[in-house]
């Protein structure tokens, strides 16, 4: 077990970062948001499907977690994590986390043929689970039941459903594939990964196999810590660049000691978030995941909040991308368990019991 990045991972990072720098700079993401400012409607124009095609097909990120026999790369969580760091850094509007991580993790134990289609990026899936669910409470927000081979009920707060061709629905320990679910995107705090309410009314469903949803959400939460790391890194780097450039009182504001000390502390938080993210994918244990989520979710929010504050007025404007990161960070604080949920889980995992 190592906490460092391998050479292969660094190469993968360089490829993804290069592509995103070219195709998905913050200004481009802002333009996509502008294209439908109120976020209403059933399709989300925010997703950049051309970019996703290149990422999935040319760089091959869609099949990273999928074994070679199913047409994937058979890579480790550690490589997936590096991709998530870069996608977080760019708040890139692509369905990697939702399709290539969450849906794929649910499918993997079944060995279903759909894996091959996902690996090639030909189809995109979403796990019909609330993004606000957690490994400790996987059913939050869901009320789907099986009745005569058909699914009825709804799931709120589903991420990636609006961009998915296939919905994978976990019900009572089994996973079902549904193609005809009603997906209604609601205005979402995270502009770059909106959530939707998914409704089934006696929808036809194919049983794909067994599904340990808590386990899927635990692995997803561990990987989400790397996306949060990427968000925090962008916030830190962008703020550093800003305070070196921005002058007030005839000095760069980054020369003021109070600003310097806050950024030193933030850097230290990010350094530790990197170690936590690496640890979560290196061993994938419940403890490592809970630690990484408890720490990184909060660091991402704090980094985005500091970024906004240290940008001053410009940080409050729609035209500066910092708000995209704040909204992403705050949303992922809730996603797959809040920091408090993960700390609570640690209480029993590492024997720090509560009162009574």
């Amino acid at each position, binding site marked *: 077990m190592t906490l460092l990045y391998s050479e292969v991972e660094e190469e993968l990072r360089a490829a993804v970062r290069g592509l995103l720098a070219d195709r998905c700079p913050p200004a481009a993401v802002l333009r996509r948001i502008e294209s439908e*400012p*109120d*976020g209403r409607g059933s399709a989300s124009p925010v997703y950049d499907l051309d970019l996703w095609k290149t990422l999935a097909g040319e760089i091959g990120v869609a099949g990273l977690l999928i074994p070679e026999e199913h047409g994937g790369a058979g890579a480790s969580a550690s490589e997936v994590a590096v991709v998530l760091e870069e996608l977080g850094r760019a708040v890139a509007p692509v369905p990697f986390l939702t399709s290539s991580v969450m849906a794929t993790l649910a499918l993997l134990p079944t060995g279903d043929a759909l894996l091959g289609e996902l690996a090639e990026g030909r189809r995109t899936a979403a796990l019909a689970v609330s*993004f*606000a669910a957690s490994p400790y409470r996987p059913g*939050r927000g869901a009320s789907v039941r099986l009745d005569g081979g058909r699914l009825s009920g709804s799931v709120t*707060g589903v*991420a990636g459903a609006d961009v998915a061709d296939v919905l994978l629905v976990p019900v009572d320990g089994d996973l079902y594939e549904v193609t005809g679910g009603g997906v209604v995107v*609601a*205005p*979402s*705090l*995270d*502009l770059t990964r909106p*959530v939707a309410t998914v409704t089934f009314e006696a929808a036809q469903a194919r049983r794909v196999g067994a599904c340990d949803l808590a386990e899927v959400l635990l692995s997803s939460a561990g990987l989400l810590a790397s996306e949060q790391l990427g968000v925090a890194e962008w916030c830190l780097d962008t703020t550093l660049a800003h305070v070196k450039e921005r*002058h*007030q*009182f*005839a*000095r760069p504001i980054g020369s*003021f000691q*109070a*600003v310097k000390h806050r950024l030193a502390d933030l850097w230290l938080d990010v350094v530790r978030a990197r170690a936590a993210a690496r640890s979560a994918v290196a061993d994938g244990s419940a403890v490592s995941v809970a630690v990484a989520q408890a720490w990184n979710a909060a660091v991402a*929010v704090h980094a985005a*909040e500091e970024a*906004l*504050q240290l940008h*001053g*007025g*410009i*940080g*409050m*404007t*729609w*035209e500066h991308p910092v*708000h995209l990161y*704040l*909204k992403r960070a*705050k*949303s992922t*604080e*809730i*996603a797959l368990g*809040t*920091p*408090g*949920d993960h*700390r*609570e889980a640690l209480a029993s995992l590492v024997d720090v019991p*509560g009162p009574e």
Partner: protein
Amino acid sequence: MNEPEIKERVAAFLGEHDPAGDRLEFLRARFDAGLAWVWFPEGLGGLGASRELQQVVDRELAHTPQITSGVQGIGLGMAAPTILAFGTEEQRRRFLRPLWTGEEIWCQLFSEPGAGSDLATLATRAVRDGDEWVVDGQKVWTSGAHHSRWGILVARTDPDVPKHRGLTYFVCDMHAPGVEVRPLRQITGEAEFNEVFLTGVRLPDDLRLGAVGDGWRVAQTTLMNERVAIGGAASVRRGGGMLGAVLDTWREQPELRTHDLHQRLLALWVEAEVTRLSGARLREQLVAGHPGPEGSGMKLSFARLNQALSGLDVEMRRDLGYDDWAFRRSETVDFYGRGPGYRYLRAKGNSIEGGTSEILRNIISERVLGLPAEPRVDKDVPWKDLPR
């Protein structure tokens, strides 16, 4: 003048003017009777009385037509005291009456993209041309600019002297050619503020307020009044304000509660309460005529509290949604009419607008605690030679 006398005046005024009649006519009459702001001089809407007596007047006239404090806020709170202090007799007579009645709305043209905390470094130029000034530059964070008749404007008239010395204060005619107002969208989706572009705007010299080069001193009067307004420690009830919004949900939805949230909420409850008590103590001091330095801290405290509470609120509700991203103008900050996501985002501005928390900490440490200033690198350098 004392309380009975002023009550008599109000009674006499009400005898002559029917509050049920035309609103504007009534307000104009109230101004002319010196009952607009009694501490202003006679003839300018006041009676030269003590400021406290205004409360008496307001009580007596509570059921008559009122001015609209929201959209008139900048005029009343910032422009008016500055015009009173630095305006010529002619300027006072021209501007104060329609300002108070709300016939003319005012906005503030101070901040610039390059001059926020360091306002004195502002770059909008005003160049004299005979009896006129030609103004070029860009202002930002101007609320109400789109329906303002006038703006209070600080511009640079001499770039060759150190930054504080080359400024002049004007009343800007917002209807003049070359004034362009654009809404500025915020992270909440809406636009409370504007950017104002000034391109070859010609202002007659009689719109200048105070002497040429004296703009910084004039602006101080405006800003002091702004801080009073923002830090004004509005009375909050125990458990009210932003805390109340969180507590309502907490009590109504027990399924949202966790020990983590509970402990944090209790700590914030305590912080909100001691902050509320400080505000109450501050108001007692003001009433007793001994205003303490504590006021400087109120805005800082409320910004922190609003941000912490609204952040907790979003987390507690596990709400990934947002009520409305529509891009539209809003005249006021509607914390409680909007959703938790809006409150969370909007509260971020509380530590930036009207003096950042960083600047407030500088001010407290130097003016209240007497700590020494940092070494200054811009004191005696001509503005044009400053690094930027």
